[in-house]
């Protein structure tokens, strides 16, 4: 029940976001669109940016659940995530302003980090590296992908081929192993 109210609010928000940017949308507009009252909105979300973050995370979750296969390589997973961003570029561009840059970065990083962690653990050297060093390596590479994402958003999200994902995969494949070696106990 609660989940559906949240989703209803989120869907109404997406409908508005397809027409105009986040700074032109008020809580009043959203509750009018989905027929709940103001207090119900605040029961679920602290403000519109909170709703944006939830919507993004929720929609990514749905998309990945539908499209991600067990056997997918880590590169495919990251490429799939960027494909989601591309498919939803209107929502993402309309929802983006100076206030939620951090939220976008956080949302992207939250998805990317486990894929990278998975890749790192496949290296034989990984077993000999302390956990916090592996986490650090993971953070550095994650940061690279989320920065590519934000840069792309800033440019208005043109064709996804313009994001140098492939090049970044190449850099990563070539350097994770040596990074792990340097951190070996």
């Amino acid at each position: 029940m609660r989940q559906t109210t949240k989703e209803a609010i989120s869907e109404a928000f997406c409908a508005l976001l397809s027409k105009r940017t986040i700074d032109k949308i008020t809580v009043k507009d959203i509750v009018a669109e989905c027929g709940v009252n103001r207090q119900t909105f605040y029961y679920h979300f602290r403000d519109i940016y909170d709703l944006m973050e939830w919507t993004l995370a929720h929609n990514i979750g749905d998309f990945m659940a539908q499209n991600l296969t067990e056997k997918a390589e880590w590169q495919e997973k990251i490429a799939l995530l960027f494909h989601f961003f591309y498919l939803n570029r209107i929502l993402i561009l309309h929802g983006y302003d100076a206030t939620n840059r951090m939220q976008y970065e956080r949302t992207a990083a939250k998805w990317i980090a486990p894929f990278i962690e998975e890749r790192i653990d496949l290296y034989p050297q990984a077993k000999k590296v302390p956990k916090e060093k592996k986490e650090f390596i993971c953070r550095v590479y994650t940061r690279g992908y989320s920065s590519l994402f934000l840069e792309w958003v800033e440019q208005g999200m043109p064709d996804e081929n313009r994001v140098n994902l492939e090049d970044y995969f190449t850099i990563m494949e070539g350097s994770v192993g040596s990074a792990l070696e340097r951190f070996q106990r």
Partner: protein
Amino acid sequence: MDASNKVVRYGLKRAFGYMEKDPEENLPKLMDWVDRFAPEGERGFPVQRAAFRRVIEDPGCNMHKLMMRIFTETDQEVLKTVFENFILNGNLLGWPKQEELKEKYGCNIPWAILLDPTSACNLHCTGCWAAEYGDRLNLTFDEIDSIITQGKELGVYIYIYTGGEPLVRKRDLIALCRKHHDCQFLAFTNATLIDEEFAGEMLSVKNFIPAISVEGFEEATDARRGKGTYQKVVKAMKLLKELRLPFGISCCYTSQNLDSISSDEYFDQMIRWGASFVWYFHYMPVGNDAAPELLPTPEQREFMYHKIRQVREEKPIFAMDFQNDGEYVGGCIAGGRRYFHINANGDCDPCVFIHYSNANIRQMSLLDVLHSPIFMAYHDGQPFHENHLRPCPMLENPERLQEMVRATGAHSTDLQSPETAEHLCEKCRAYAENWAPTAERLWNKTWDCKAEDERFGPKRAG
């Protein structure tokens, strides 16, 4: 250092993050950040900060043990929010703003606002007006939202719900917590409506702390509040403790129950339940059907005076008694000096116990309320007595309240049975006369101790 400085604020939050790893080691570092964050001079709480530092650096003292207990028994995210909303926003940031606006507007600016979301209650306790009060009044979500929005403009970040039973409106209260996530909310509650779902919401908003009314053990509680109530309350406290949510207890002491609720056994029980603080309220003979015989005797009140001070020295729970702790807050804090009360009808009372007003929040702004006649009479009249053990214009100085009500034309806002100020104050006259000699003796002793501290410096442990 400028309190609004974002960099310092960020540093403070980071410093607080280190607490998780090793509070014993990192607390002094956090205190360094707080010192950098605090505004210069009197407004930056130099005395309080010095006291905190002494507590932090002295592992043997009781307050140190209490702090460590709170650090280890509370959810870390909740603790961070309380630190940010209560300590940073509510005090270090809010207080200097309140002081500044107090001068600018020439009226009291509160530190906290108490409000009744509803007059309704789910229990029907003997002697409680909410039980008899049929017609249910509510402040709407939008009205409370507006009060908080206006309050924040004045630097007020602390909101305390009273009632009625505030949790009758628990969905709206959670919505308000979420919307005003920079504020600290507390609620006086009977706790019977705290279930798993609500506790989960508390954990998600992180800025809601209940002060649960428990006045003694099972028999006394159930006799007054209905069979099974005690077990419900105990269950709620168990749930809060399991989820590592902070909570306190509030007790009203009367001539009848004082012995039981001030016993060591009871304090130890409250600590076992998991309460971080306990607020004691002196019984007030308010209302046409009040029972003045429930007023504590001077001997009983003096006993409480010593007991609470002893508990603060000895037990890991923070105990306060508003009527006897006036020395720490400069006497009466009502009338907006540090707080005031808005009832479920929108009437703005100077105090939760003083139901006389010329102002209703539905018709005027918060700032206009603070400028209304009885609030200005409080502003001009405080402190009502130089002896802070006689702080109240009703209980210890009943002639003062009658005077103020007469001079300002404030009307009774009692929702059930309006009472004249004369009738109310008459019930306090004998009490005030009887208490005065004890108050004088205790006060003179306090001053002798303080003078000694000033001459020889604060006492050091060891």
